[in-house]
């Protein structure tokens, strides 16, 4: 029965077509202090060298953080920051920044 529930949940998530963040935005908020120094408290970064994160797709943020952690994407600051993040931290941070208002699709 559990399998059925999982499959149904997956099909509902799929049908909605929205990007669902698996993490907890409130936990992400608490963990985001170091991020805020560069990316801003509201996800709008403090310098043109750093990307805005507000509203970004959560799975894109998670992929970027995993790539920094694994060394697939190279940046001295971000590799240092991502090195100590757990998978749970990555999910929570992505949920937090993706919940902010900012980036959008341009149509």
């Amino acid at each position: 029965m559990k399998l059925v529930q999982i499959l149904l949940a997956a099909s509902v998530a799929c049908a909605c077509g929205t990007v669902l963040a698996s993490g907890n935005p409130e936990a992400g908020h608490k963990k985001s202090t170091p991020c805020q120094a560069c990316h801003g408290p509201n996800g709008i970064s403090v310098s043109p060298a750093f990307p805005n994160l507000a509203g970004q797709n959560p799975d894109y943020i998670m992929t970027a953080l995993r790539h920094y952690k694994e060394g697939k994407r190279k940046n001295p600051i971000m590799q240092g920051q991502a090195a100590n993040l757990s998978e749970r931290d990555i999910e929570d941070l992505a949920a937090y920044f993706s919940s902010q208002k900012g980036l959008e699709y341009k149509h």
Partner: protein
Amino acid sequence: MQRAHRLALGALLACSTGAAALAAETQAPSQAPAAQAAAPQSNAASAKGAGAMSWSAPLQNKIAQCQGCHGIEGWRTAFPEVYHVPKLEGQKPEYIVAALKEYQNGERTFATMRAIASQLSDEDMQGIAKYYGAQNTNTAEKK
């Protein structure tokens, strides 16, 4: 139980068929970016946020290439990892240029972006960055 399983599988199947149909639908515009960009009222020129800025025809072609993925809500990468492509509207223009340069010189490795960035001049990159960044950076900060 058996029936419930079949129902669930049926739902999943319907979902994936729907996704395929959606992909086919959304792929169509991305396959004809050149034609769109060549038209006077192109995607790029009429897009919201373009404001008073004008985009040369060659630049419109490049922007149409970006829009083929980044302009479609919910568009995902297909290989080697699946995730939603980043939203670009409202991004810092300088960061967009830096990212494109990293793809061009191989520091960033995603194959599709490497292929596209390899064909861009510095001027193209500046234009693309302006298209996505200039207007909405301010809007985002006001929010």
